[in-house]
């Protein structure tokens, strides 16, 4: 537990977003429990009785063919989609199915979208400033001033995502790979306990992919990280435990080499 930065009570109660308790209770180990999640769109079951547990501090990779339900699973965890059945808990106490997107963000879950989504009309610096953990209600935001601690945090994150030289540039002017990093940097500014990364290396050069792999590995331990990716080389480089989704439920789970050898996995995904 010492590896994890503690969520102080002031921060957890942030902004009175009505998040229960003083932070995420991970005393029993897992930080995320999904149990029996089912989501249907017009009869099509995007998720079918999906059960998944992520341990605190874990780096988990999730793979699966298109339509396996990876993004829908992210939507359920972040409150964008409500499940028709099943439970989703963040730690022991926080029921994700009852919270809105901003409340879930305040509780400590950060999400990177499949398509890099940054504020293109704002500078890189301002993107990080906006994402920074703070009182995010209207009045608190109006009064907000950057302290030297805040500036240091932004500077550290800029270094971590290798955008220090671009701090004053408009985010819209960044390359595709840089936008992906900026988005990860925005997540880090929120100080999340759990990071969800949807295809973090899509559209990146090999060099950028390597550097992103290093970044992901350095994040695990301090945060719990869930990576959804198609790029098998990337997965092979970072994966410790892999979950394979197929038709809305878990097909296989385990270390990369075991999963790769699983005949069912080869049939639906890797073999193609």
């Amino acid at each position, binding site marked *: 537990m*010492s*590896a994890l*930065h503690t969520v102080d009570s002031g921060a957890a109660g942030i*902004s009175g*977003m009505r998040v229960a308790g003083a932070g995420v209770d991970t005393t029993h180990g897992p930080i995320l429990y999904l149990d029996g999640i089912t989501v249907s769109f017009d009869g099509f079951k995007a998720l079918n009785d999906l059960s998944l547990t992520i341990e605190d501090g874990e780096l988990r990779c999730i793979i699966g063919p298109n339509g396996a339900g990876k993004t829908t699973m992210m939507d359920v965890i*972040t409150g*964008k989609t409500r499940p028709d059945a099943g439970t989703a808990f963040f730690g022991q106490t926080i029921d994700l199915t009852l919270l*809105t*997107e*901003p409340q879930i*963000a*305040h509780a400590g879950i*950060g*999400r990177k*979208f499949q398509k890099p*989504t*940054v*504020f*293109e*009309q*704002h*500078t890189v*610096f*301002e993107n990080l*400033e*906006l*994402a920074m953990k703070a009182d*995010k*209600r*209207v009045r608190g*935001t*109006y*009064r*907000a001033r*950057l302290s030297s601690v805040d*500036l*240091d945090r*932004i*500077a*550290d994150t*800029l*270094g*971590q995502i*290798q955008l*220090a030289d671009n*701090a*004053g540039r408009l985010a819209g002017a960044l390359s595709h790979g840089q936008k992906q990093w900026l988005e990860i940097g*925005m*997540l880090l500014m*929120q100080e999340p306990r759990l990071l969800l990364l949807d295809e973090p290396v899509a559209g990146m050069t090999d060099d950028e992919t390597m550097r992103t792999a290093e970044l992901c590995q*350095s994040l695990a*331990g*301090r945060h719990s990280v869930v990576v959804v990716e198609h790029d098998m080389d990337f997965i092979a480089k970072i994966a410790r435990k892999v979950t394979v989704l197929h038709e809305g439920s878990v097909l296989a789970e385990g270390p990369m080499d075991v999963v790769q050898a699983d005949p069912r996995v080869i049939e639906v995904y890797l073999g193609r």
Partner: protein
Amino acid sequence: MNAPLPLPLRVSMKAPAHPVLTRPGWVAYVITAYVVLVLIPSAYLLLPAGHPLHLSDYFVTLTGKIMCYAMVALAMDLIWGYAGILSLGHGLFFALGGYAMGMYLMRSIGHDGVYHSDLPDFMVFLDWKTYPWYWSLTDHFWFAALLVVLAPGVLAFVFGYFAFRSRIKGVYFSIITQALTYAFMLLFFRNDTGFGGNNGFTDFKRILGFPIAAPSTRAALFIATGIALLGALLLCRYIVTSKLGRVLTAIRDAESRAMFIGYNPLWYKLFVWTLSAVLCGIAGALYVPQVGIINPGEMSPANSIEIAIWTAVGGRGTLVGPIAGAFLVNGAKSWFTQAFPEFWLFFLGLLFVLVTLFLPSGVIGLVHRRPWRKAS
């Protein structure tokens, strides 16, 4: 704590400056305030009618009226330019502020109406014996002033709450606001609604005891409008240069990203939307005593669309631009409707098309494009 990550380097960071106004901006602001609050009223009141620098009743009333429009354009820019919400019903909030002030002005007529009754002429005409309940207290100026803020503010808050909570956006939101102002126009056209039907309120005699058409009263109203406009501009600048302003534009550009980093767009939109409506209400309240009439025509959909045109012509997302746009379009309108009355609407349409095609950042974009200005 684990050992911190090896960091490439920590650059010493300085927070980017977001001044409310730049130094030249403050100079221009003070000069404008001096012209509006001192020079124009002096040239109007103190110089004799024959003096070459004397300003006429017509000039002062017209400029005062356009300053009210400019305040509406400013309010429009706050939500359209910065929050990306296009309202096509802002004329409604303007008219509600105007009607609230109009009720007070009607009651100030006293017995000097055509029928010398306690009631306004239109109520006598309808054979009403007493004021309806919702006219109570409107003989007090303080209550009318409160109503100027509350009527548009509460309506905008309630309407906005449901619209934004349901995540109604873009053109759907615009259409609903258009329908809203149209519905209110039909309501106010009815005589039974108790606001003078299609004639509205007119023939005002005095405000706060002063004769309403006297030059000193006109000058006072002009100065009040100037203070309101300059104050509103500063307020809006404070908002858009704060972190709150950056959150607004962030919600405008990538709403879901803003939500997933913890901002609830509902309250942000509702805040600027309601503030914008209140600014319109105040503008309407200053407009009515200067122009001397308020009727449901102010709620017509075309009026609200015109507000959007002033804002687009001036330059969205600049605050100063829409003020310039309101002056430009309405200045052209008052000249055109005298010189070529039948061509005004064609000209307005042409202006809108040309600005959209060639000046996407509005007239104010021309200023920023000057070569001697550094790219921002």
